[in-house]
């Protein structure tokens, strides 16, 4: 049934991932908000505190995962919205490329920041 595989259009996959990431985000985002606005108030944020958290492996990897899912969820959402408005043809390809690059830059930048905080990948 190899055929079935290929006929599984990305439309459906992306739809499913949009939901799955959303479900994941609910939890992580709530955690994130709570931690950074209620437990530690935003104006008290310093590099040191971030550094303290980031050096923990669990927290670090959670944040990386958070970044990746949020990026996927957000960028894919934007892309979907554009396709829903009838984006097609070469413009669609272009948008796809731009969004892809943007996500990549975002993730790279985010990961670099996290590493800077942690002072290298925490082990």
């Amino acid at each position, binding site marked *: 049934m190899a055929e079935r595989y290929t006929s599984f259009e990305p439309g*459906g996959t992306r*739809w499913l991932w949009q939901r799955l990431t959303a479900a994941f985000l609910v939890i992580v985002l709530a955690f994130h908000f709570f931690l950074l606005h209620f437990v530690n108030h935003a104006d008290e944020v310093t590099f040191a505190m971030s550094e303290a958290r980031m050096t923990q492996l669990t927290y670090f990897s959670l944040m990386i995962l958070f970044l990746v899912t949020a990026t996927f969820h957000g960028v894919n959402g934007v892309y979907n919205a554009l396709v829903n408005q009838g984006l097609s043809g070469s413009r669609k390809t272009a948008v796809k490329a731009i969004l892809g690059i943007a996500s990549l830059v975002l993730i790279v930048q985010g990961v670099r920041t996290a590493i800077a905080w942690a002072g290298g990948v925490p082990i």
Partner: protein
Amino acid sequence: MSTQVPEQVEDESSAESVSPGKQKRDAKKRERAERLQEQREAEAAEKARTADDTYHLKVFRYDPEVEGKQEPRFDDFYVPYKQGMTVLDALMWARDHYDSSLTFRHSCRQAICGSDALFVNGSQRLGCKTQLSDLSEPVRVEPLPHADVVKDLVVDMEHFYDQMEAVEPYFQTNSLPDEDEEQRQTRENREKVKMSTRCIWCSACMSSCNIAAGDNEYLGPAAINKAYRFAMDEREGEEMKQRRLEILEQEHGVWRCQTQFSCTEVCPKDIPLTEHIQELKREAIKNNLKFW
């Protein structure tokens, strides 16, 4: 009261070639006709005024060919109200008594032919199934949004038909019993597809869906519902169901739906469209998970 575009003055040259006798006769006829017409309009206006209850309709008008109607506009009609009068009745009255050029599709008057889906006071409804008494005045009647207007309230349905026909909207199965024996179907299964078979192709749902408005290739709720009708019919068998899901999984198939619910809200046949679309999405995902 007539909202007819002013008639053009008769062309001189065409009158010349006619014999004087005929001209006279014509003139007389015209006079009589004019009198009749005036009388009729006066009567209609009188009736409308004296009736205890008249309804004020604002009707969208447009005709690509008639000068003066090329720029879309709204016309006002005052229609005497009778118990049980529908928007369609009111339009017919206005057409027959005020302006015979008022154009709209209609046929069955009983919500089964699906010809008269209109945009009434801001939502898609069947004219024949909408009681005037349920509406606030003035009743604004427009052609379906997100479709090309052909004339007045008539829109081009071609695109809608294309979408409906894109989902292989016909029964297919590989195993039929003898020609004098029916296929068996459980009551439950017939119950499951029942609502989906009620679609009358009125296009109200399609017109209400913002996604369909933005993405011309989106199959739209009615076509997806049509596919649901077959995909869920056990008589077609598993193999066909796979095929149907494949059709629905295209880029512009079920995934485009953003669960706006407006289709479900406007469907005059109360078909739970969003529910059907959602069920198909889940079926499609389940179906694909099987192979992972």
